[in-house]
């Protein structure tokens, strides 16, 4: 496979992930992840230093399996979480995609993701701006996400932050 093809496949995966989140197709979204995925949203220690050791420092979110993501989907679907009583409409805009450390079966990807979030209940809007680093792995014909690190720049969070806002 040429590097160009690989790039197109990776970009397609990122766009598909964004679409699944935006259309609330949670099961299809979840299927993009490996079971042992490390899903990590660091917190900030200073103006330009994020936490680096999720075992001894605080993260905004640190999950080390797909099951933990599934719990969050269940929480939203239950209709019993006040933070998610009326789900937001979102558009995840992916840009600045850069491929790093490509091997036959793995690839590391950097990108920027700006999530536009509209809250129909409050008729208000806000956004999450993040620099993402993903580790992808080949599973058969497909790429899967084995690690996803989301560095949220605007971390004065408006009441909540969850996977569909990233």
């Amino acid at each position, binding site marked *: 496979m040429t590097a160009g093809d690989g790039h197109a496949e990776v970009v397609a995966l990122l766009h598909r992930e964004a679409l699944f989140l935006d259309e609330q197709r949670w099961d299809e979204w979840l299927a993009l992840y490996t079971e042992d995925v490390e899903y990590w949203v660091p*917190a900030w*220690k*200073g103006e330009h230093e994020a936490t680096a050791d999720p075992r001894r420092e*605080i993260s*905004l979110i640190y999950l080390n399996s797909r099951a933990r993501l599934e719990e969050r989907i269940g929480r939203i679907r239950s209709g019993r979480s*006040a*933070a998610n009583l009326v789900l937001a409409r979102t558009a995840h805009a992916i840009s600045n995609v850069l491929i790093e450390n490509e091997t036959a079966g793995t690839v590391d990807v950097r990108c920027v993701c700006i999530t536009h979030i509209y809250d129909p209940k409050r008729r208000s809007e806000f956004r999450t701006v993040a620099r993402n680093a993903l580790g992808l792995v080949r599973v058969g014909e497909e790429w899967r996400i084995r690690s996803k690190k989301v560095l949220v720049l605007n971390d*004065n*969070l408006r009441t909540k*932050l969850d996977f569909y806002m990233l």
Partner: protein
Amino acid sequence: MANRHPSEGGGALTFNKRPGFAYARKGQVVPDRGRTSGDPDMDASDIEALVIDRPEDGVFKVHADVYRSEEIFELEQKYIFEGGWVFLGLDCQAPEPHDFFTTYIGRQSVIVSRDKDGVLHGLINACRHRGALVCHTAAGNAPTHVCPYHAWTYDSAGNNTAITAHDRGAHGAGFDAEDHGLRRIPRFESYRGFLFGSLDPDVPSLEAYLGETTIFIDLVVDQGPDGLELVPGTVHYTYRGNWKLQIENSADIYHFMPTHETLLRIVNARAADDAAAASAYRHRKEGSVTRGSMCFPNGHNAMFGGGDNIQARPLYRELDKLRERVGAVRAKWMLYTRNVLFFPNMQLLENASLQIRVNRPVSASRTDIVTHCIAPRGESDEARELRVRQYEEFFNPSGLATPDDTAIFEDIQAAAGADAVDWNQGYMRGMGTASREPIAEARELGLNPVTSVTGSPSLGDETILHGPIRAWRDRLKAALSSEDRPSLRYGSAAAE
């Protein structure tokens, strides 16, 4: 009418200001004083009318205006947040010489700075020349702070060490007679590394203000043999709601099961798969878990209880050593769920993990929150990882519990649109059983709360909310009754 602007000369600043307000001791009556000019058009009787407080009839109600009026917000800022003790931070946020951090007292940016000799100083973060912000970062290390505007320079004790082209400035004698150091926070004290400041110099000592609630600071500081430390990573969030909604929520036992049903479902499902994964909130039977509350003078309160799954606590691993070091009673209390409010702006919250939460009201309907995880200094990797995961899951706005609370604060604020929402009824559970005699759990810690209650979680006591509301009412009433208006003096570095 008193002058609201700085007086001339002497480096002193004179405000129109009422005298010391009502820091009530148990049973003490708040003196009546005349109101201060320039305040919103309210007087003490208007404040009084916003709280119906008749314990003898089992009635306690708070008017919705207390949570939505911008006039009241102005009064709170001036007379509570900028007019008395507020929490600033922990001394371990600036451990080394020249370390500093910045925070707020009400609307005032302040610096806490450790000087070259290790002494901490509370300073006003505004240049003495023309008022530009001096410190720009949340924290750092700097032997000197140079103002970006005209480059006046201050050392880490707040002294002015350089005035740009001073000798060529052709100043008159008046300028040179003044001190040019950063203004000091008039009162700046520490209780075991918990730093508090007051812009009003006329307040009781910090220990007198905190009273018996210092025991709840001890219960945190003494968890490890070497004191506590901040776990790196600051989490900020903001909500469109009044600040009191947050402090009331943390004391509110009644909301836990309904509001946090999704969290409980998740953690119980995990425990069903893997018993070792049982959370602190594993399925609880009525009767096995207790919850109680205590109100203290000056608006502080504590919700507490036992019967949770203490094996899930990071401290549990060291329980024997802990008992040996602090005794069985304090060790038991360290493993209790405890939500303690240090009125008005700081909470120490411990359940599956331990949080310090600081609120900063921005308007009547907006509040900023800053949170830290705290832990025994140097705890084991295993305990720390457990603490960090449980902290994130429960306390973070990106976790599974806090966002449901915070969303409801916004719902409450949005729903209180007009006078159709006036007197809410949610302050009266527990009034039939709240006692002026300390409950047994208070006595075992040597505490004498104003009122205390104990029972099962479903009692859902709400008398715990009365303490902060009464302090709020009494402080504002005293301020609005104030007649004589002594000046507020900020002593500058050299003047002290």
